[in-house]
């Protein structure tokens, strides 16, 4: 799988793609629900959107994009039969994931200290639901990447057989992709 010829199937185990589609469907519905509910409560949404920390969101977006890029490098390395390189890039990606969790965690800490929760108002219901659901996906994605990284370190993958790396990578990119929409939709568009 090194050449540039076209494939019939996406990289990784096909099962993960079935679930990527399911996840995208759920997030898609959530995003649409957010957009249409906002249309009925424009003032409320615009007011409370201002309480969100866009700088934190910037750091988080950069962290996820960078992390995704590191995963791309990890895949490139394993395709070149370089298990050590693959492992290191995955660790770097995990580091970026951790940065995301810390920054997002600080944001939550701020909100919770003000007593904000799912029942505060419709905007916060959506904001917390969407970001927390995504937050958990970051955690899950990191667990997957960690498992892949540990196996890579033990030399469990090779240029000939590295479906596991591609599977984990595809999932992680999906987590990144969803945030690409979530960031402008919830933090910026008004």
């Amino acid at each position, binding site marked *: 799988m090194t050449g540039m010829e076209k494939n019939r199937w996406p990289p990784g185990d096909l*099962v993960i793609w*079935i*679930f990527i589609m*399911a996840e995208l*469907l*759920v997030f898609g*519905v*959530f995003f649409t*629900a957010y957009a249409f509910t906002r249309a009925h409560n424009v003032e409320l949404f615009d007011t409370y959107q201002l309480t969100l920390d866009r700088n934190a969101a910037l750091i988080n977006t950069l962290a996820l994009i960078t992390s995704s890029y590191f995963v791309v490098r990890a895949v490139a390395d394993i395709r070149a039969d370089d298990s050590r390189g693959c492992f290191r890039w995955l660790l770097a990606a995990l580091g970026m994931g951790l940065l995301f969790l810390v920054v997002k965690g600080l944001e939550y800490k701020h909100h919770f200290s003000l007593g904000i929760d*799912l*029942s505060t108002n419709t905007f916060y*219901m*959506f904001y917390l*639901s969407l970001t927390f659901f995504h937050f958990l996906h970051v955690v899950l994605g990191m667990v997957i990447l960690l498992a892949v990284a540990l196996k890579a370190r033990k030399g469990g993958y090779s240029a000939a057989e590295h479906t596991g790396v591609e599977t984990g990578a595809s999932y992680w990119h999906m987590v990144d992709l969803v945030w690409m929409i979530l960031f402008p939709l919830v933090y910026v568009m008004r």
Partner: protein
Amino acid sequence: MKYKSQKVAKLYFIAAIGLFVGQILFGLIIGAQYIWGDFLFPEIPFNVARMVHTNLLIVWLLFGFMGAAYYLVPEEAETDLVMPWLANLMFWIFLTAGAATILGYLLVPYAQLAELTKNELLPTMGREFLEQPTITKIGIVIVALSFLANIGLTILKGRKTVINLVLLMGMTGLAVFFLFAFYNPVNVVLDKYYWWWVVHLWVEGVWELILGSILAFILIKTTGVDREVIEKWLYVIIAMVLITGIIGTGHHYYWIGTPAFWQWWGSIFSAMEPIPFFMMTVFAFNMVNKRRRNHPNKAAVLWALGTAVMAFLGAGVWGFLHTLSPVNYYTHGTQITAAHGHMAFYGAYVMIVLAMISYAMPMLRGREAANSTKSQVLEMWGFWLMTISIVFITLFLTGAGILQVYLQRFADNPMPFMVVQEKIQLFYALREIAGFIFLSGLLIYIVSFFVGSKEPEATIEGEVVPT
């Protein structure tokens, strides 16, 4: 039948069918009470008859599940049950306890039954589907634990197939979530919140694991498709079931005093619940199309395919109809719910148990693989009569429900409940007729066990045409 201990399944299956008849008879009684309000009053009030109808359903399905497990676990594990005697003993205990409970419902007023069984020590009675006296509930836990020990140890001892593991997980989940039946706080919101951990997490959660594994077993046996393929899809489907179904519990948390975020979480996730059912339908038909051989037991294949289709229609489509919170605002607690309940229970759980009985019973009665053609033809008549009647019961109740929602909740001048009930009488009458046709289907189904037993087994006609 490869292992002697599989034989215990037969008792369970016979009891299941017997109780099924009882369930339908009481269904007809409450159906009649919808038309003639004073029918059998005050001897058998509606609430008592309904309790018998629903409790018999649950008990016979449990008998069916346990029978199915006792049949398929040894075959999958390639070893005899570790304790066949325990399976026999538990059968009689469960049957006696079940019968005593039903008789208790019928012979003494419910309040007196509560007093006799010391409900005040640990009040658990009087909640929908959990009407059993506390002592019966404890009995159910004991039966469930012995059952789990029996199949669990058998599975540990023998070959560990995916089907066995999924079945064991489903059965364990069934036992674990039943424990919430013992939590009954005065706070009605909390009571209802955890009541659903029994009811929803059973029928839209762990029971579906049981359904999936039994269906996979029948498909492996009747189509000859590679086990690897079937087990892989089984995992994909049950993963989707739980991914959508667990948070999907939220569609019960719209109007019971729970916070508003459930409107969104419940709507979004439960809207996805038809997906696994759809996958199951596609999967079942695919496997049958890709079959490596024709199985002489056509009736069993028909039941299996029927399960996939009717579960999708009843649980998937009819569930989706009223699962979104803006729709459910109007339909909650109306005949729409009843319509969905009837087709979903029949399509998913009644049919899978009957599919398993259809597959296993010929072997349990000493046949090689299938009943005679004559018997199968009759069985398939039973299949069609029952299935078509349940479709009509569902349609009539849906009609009743739509009218009820409009008159009682949607119209400019909402009418009182009892006035509306009189206006939808016609649908109840039609439903009762469909109910009698269902009963005739059930009787034909039972007759099929006694017809053509002397005739030779059905054989496979023709070779498989690869598609």
